């Protein structure tokens, strides 16, 4: 592999925003995975499809409408789920299908547009602009600060809601905060891996990291490392071989998971 590719400025932007998104997705995803909410990222991503279509139709920058629609629908579905006692997986299915449905209907109404939708579906990390990179950095910084500040409350209410409540944690607010952060994270990450593969970054590095049998912070760090590794190697390899970055990134993450399962069944990791 020629090192020349590391001198291209589009490659710098891709790597910087890629690494940032990798860290963000693995941290936010860890909370979702532990809440048995693994597919929530996917559902938000699908509802952002509706948001993107709306933006394209209305002539607004699609990313903004995607943020608005995704976050709003994620919060609404959470409210409905709590109020009517709908199970987590069913509410995810509702969110997921309604997002796609809205998108499809809007595309139909507008007579169809293809190119922009395609890049949102599969990601366009090599086309990331300076503005996009700055936005990714700023949002990630903000979310990580919130997570560090509310670390105990976030972990405690994920571990056991009832006990957290008794310890004075405002569990409901924390739940909405996680949903809100997940919404921002998903829409921000769409540029990297696209709508279709978004939940892979949320889930796979975390499932892998949890197998190492460590405590919470170490698990989060292991997950981040795997996530960053997958994204960096995925971007470089896909560029060199001219294949899709999104698919390559996810395949590398799956390779790490498979490797970890191999190590584990060989008895090299503590059982739990």
């Amino acid at each position, binding site marked *: 592999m020629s090192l020349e590719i590391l001198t291209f400025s589009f490659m710098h932007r891709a790597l910087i925003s890629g690494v940032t998104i990798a860290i963000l997705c693995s941290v936010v995803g860890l909370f979702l995975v*532990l809440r*048995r909410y693994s597919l929530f990222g996917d559902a938000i991503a699908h509802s952002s499809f509706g948001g993107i279509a709306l933006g394209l139709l209305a002539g607004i920058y699609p990313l903004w409408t995607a943020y608005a629609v995704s976050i709003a629908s994620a919060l609404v579905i959470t409210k409905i789920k709590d109020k009517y006692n709908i199970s987590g997986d069913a509410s995810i299915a509702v969110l997921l299908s309604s997002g796609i449905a809205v998108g499809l209907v809007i595309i139909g109404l507008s007579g169809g547009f293809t190119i922009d939708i395609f890049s949102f579906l599969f990601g366009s990390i090599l086309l990331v602009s300076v503005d996009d990179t700055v936005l990714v950095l700023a949002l990630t910084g903000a979310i990580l600060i919130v997570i560090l500040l509310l670390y*105990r409350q976030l*972990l*405690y209410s994920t*571990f*056991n809601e*009832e*006990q*957290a*409540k*008794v*310890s*004075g944690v405002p569990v409901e607010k924390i739940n909405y905060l996680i949903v809100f952060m997940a919404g921002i994270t998903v829409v921000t990450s769409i540029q990297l891996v696209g709508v279709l593969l978004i939940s892979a970054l949320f889930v796979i590095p975390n499932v892998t*990291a*949890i197998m190492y*049998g*460590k*405590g*919470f912070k170490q*698990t989060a760090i292991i997950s981040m490392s795997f996530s960053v590794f997958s994204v960096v190697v995925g971007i470089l390899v896909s560029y060199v071989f001219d294949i899709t970055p999104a698919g390559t990134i996810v395949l590398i993450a799956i390779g790490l998971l498979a490797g970890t399962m191999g190590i584990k069944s060989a008895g090299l990791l*503590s059982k*739990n």
Partner: protein
Amino acid sequence: MLKVVEINNLTVQYPDVKALDDVSLVVNQGDFLGIIGPNGAGKSTLFASMLGLNTKYKGTIKFFDEDIKKSKNYLKELGYVPQKPIFEKNFPVTVTDVVRMGLRKESDENKIDEILQQLWIHELRDRRIGELSGGQQQRVFIAKALVNNPKILILDEPVTGIDQQSIDLFYSILRELNSKQKITIIWSSHDLDAVNKLANHVACLNRTLFFHGESETFFSDDELVKQYSEASMQEHMHHH
């Protein structure tokens, strides 16, 4: 004597069943209260109401003379060990992580080590919670409940499904907490013998409060014990 808890005419009506009916109860500072009652007697419901987890009740609950609907400050003085702590078996937290969750002030980190030593789980501190035995897990949850130096400890049937050796250790820990550290303990159980050995006050609950007073009074009165046993057996058969 300082009143820690005062419950007046507490009634809890679930859609299908009246779980508590006009229960009134006072707990004083330093009491070691055993609440006995068969399955379905309303013990967990009583605790859920006291802890603010169930807010749909009639009557009043006061902690330190303050209605819990007005102020949640009492929660700071309280440690709670649930009947069955529910968590994913693979949840990536160590014993230290779990105890730290209970800690309100992060500056008190060394309190964690202290409490782990006191409960004989110090050597387990870096193990995942899901890898431990039931008895060890339970001590971890007690450690979590104790890490803020609570004045009151509430335990809901804490020995269900735990081996005898752990139960004995657990009881000696409770006794010490009450006698040496003067922690008020409210503890539910369906084990009459254990309550007889440990508690200095007894409350017999079976939807209504059947008896409440010093444990000597209760256990020295064979007629009372017999009545209680019969009442709870009947209730038990209803449920099966």
